[in-house]
């Protein structure tokens, strides 16, 4: 009986292997929103981590309040507030248009992400031996130069694995911006579903999300390998790193998608 077949193979086949141009535009939206929001989130997290370690107390407090507020409230609430409380421009780059809602979404996601990245970056900096800063100072480096040339490159080895996990989460969390009207991958599925009542559109985009996160797993393993090159003799092979990144037990969990 047809009704018992839960999976509409035609829809899956078409969406996964022969998607329409419209679909690719939404895939691209998911990708660029994730990448830009994550990059800005790392930057914000770095600034907040440095502020947290500042000798100037108000900066430390500011950093604390930032993390407290943005980790303590739902990201969906933040997205709505950022979108409706401010007016955002629509940006045009030649053929490519970034609507105001996408910009609001990126802003909200990156501010939220920065609060998580702060702790990750701080842990990375803390993991670098204190003697490194002293050695850098003893050869005449200022704090800023020592951070940039000596401390952060070493902290990166500790930061990148959880950062990769954050980005994995980010790609999935971007689906929330559909709620403020960004036409990204989830919105595409939702729109098609509401017109056809074929739930397999959701299954199809699940395959695409899985594709994105899988590609990222490979990229992350590659980056980690590059960072650890020659630090010591017992480094992991590419395959071992891949397995580690793959295994949810070994990756850092922060619980849920944001």
């Amino acid at each position: 009986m047809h009704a018992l077949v839960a999976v509409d193979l035609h829809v899956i086949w078409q969406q996964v292997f022969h998607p329409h141009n419209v679909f690719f535009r939404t895939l691209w939206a998911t990708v660029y929103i994730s990448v830009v929001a994550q990059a800005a989130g790392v930057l914000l997290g770095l600034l907040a981590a440095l502020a947290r370690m500042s000798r100037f107390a108000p900066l430390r407090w500011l950093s604390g309040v930032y993390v407290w507020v943005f980790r303590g409230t739902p990201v969906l609430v933040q997205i709505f507030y950022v979108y409706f409380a401010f007016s955002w421009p629509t940006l045009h780059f030649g053929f490519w248009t970034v609507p105001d809602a996408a910009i609001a979404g990126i802003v909200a996601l990156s501010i939220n992400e920065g609060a998580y990245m702060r702790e990750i970056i701080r842990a990375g900096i803390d993991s670098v031996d204190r003697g490194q800063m002293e050695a850098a100072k003893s050869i005449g480096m200022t704090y800023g130069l020592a951070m940039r040339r000596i401390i952060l490159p070493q902290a990166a080895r500790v930061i990148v694995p959880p950062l990769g996990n954050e980005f994995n989460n980010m790609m999935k969390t971007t689906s929330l911006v559909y709620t403020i009207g960004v036409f990204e991958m989830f919105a595409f599925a939702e729109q098609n579903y509401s017109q056809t009542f074929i739930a397999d559109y959701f299954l199809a985009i699940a395959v695409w999300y899985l594709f994105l996160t899988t590609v990222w797993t490979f990229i992350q393993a590659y980056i980690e390998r590059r960072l650890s090159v020659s630090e010591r003799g017992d480094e992991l092979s590419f395959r071992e790193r891949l397995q580690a990144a793959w295994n949810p037990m070994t990756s850092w969990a922060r619980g849920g998608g944001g």
Partner: protein
Amino acid sequence: MSDVVMHAEDVHKSFGRLEVLKGISLEVEKGETVCIIGPSGSGKTTFIRCINHLEKIDSGRIEVNGQLIGYRQRGDRLVEDSERNIARQRTQIGMVFQRFNLFPHKTALENVIEAPVHVLGTPKEQAIGLARSLLGRVGLGDKLDTYPGKLSGGQQQRVAIARALAMGPSLMLFDEATSALDPETIGEVLEVMEELAQAGTTMIVVTHEMGFARKAAHRVVMMDDGLIIEEGPPEHFFEEPTHERTKQFLSKIL
């Protein structure tokens, strides 16, 4: 007294309620090697770290090449200098640490050229030439592209010495540079230090190596409980120490 490189005057330093330096005065002249010895907890490491302002002194003054270290005179008060000025002063003062503190993400050569290139702005080619000759001088001409993790302790410490020398400092500080080494690699580091001393490098050496102090030092300084209690040329110092505490310390360690 024109050739004084380091001048310390009544230096005091406390960590919380614990007074570690209780008024240290010391002068080191150009070309001189001064060894500071004494029991642990006597304040020798703290004192040497004050000389390049890794520790802030509470009172007194330290000058290197006639320049007040870490502070600026404002009226009759001393205020801490700007970070940039302190960094500039440190380029004059090389330091070798007990635990090497090489940059693990950089090769031996990269460790040595780091500060000349990024602090002094030396052209990279020129810095590499200098680094090659310095690493050759410490006997590591064949380890230029090796990362610290693949070097023995003694080799790492020799890279660290080359890294400090690369800035062309007028004063070298050695903070128990051989204390963290395996016995078999101590010798190679001491050899390099002796060679530097003979070549006329101005050095302040905190050490437990009495053999080195006897052989290479021009002057030995004994510290105990935050004070310098005795100083003199090694012949006198080791043969006929006057202070009871020094006798006691030497009899235990020799």
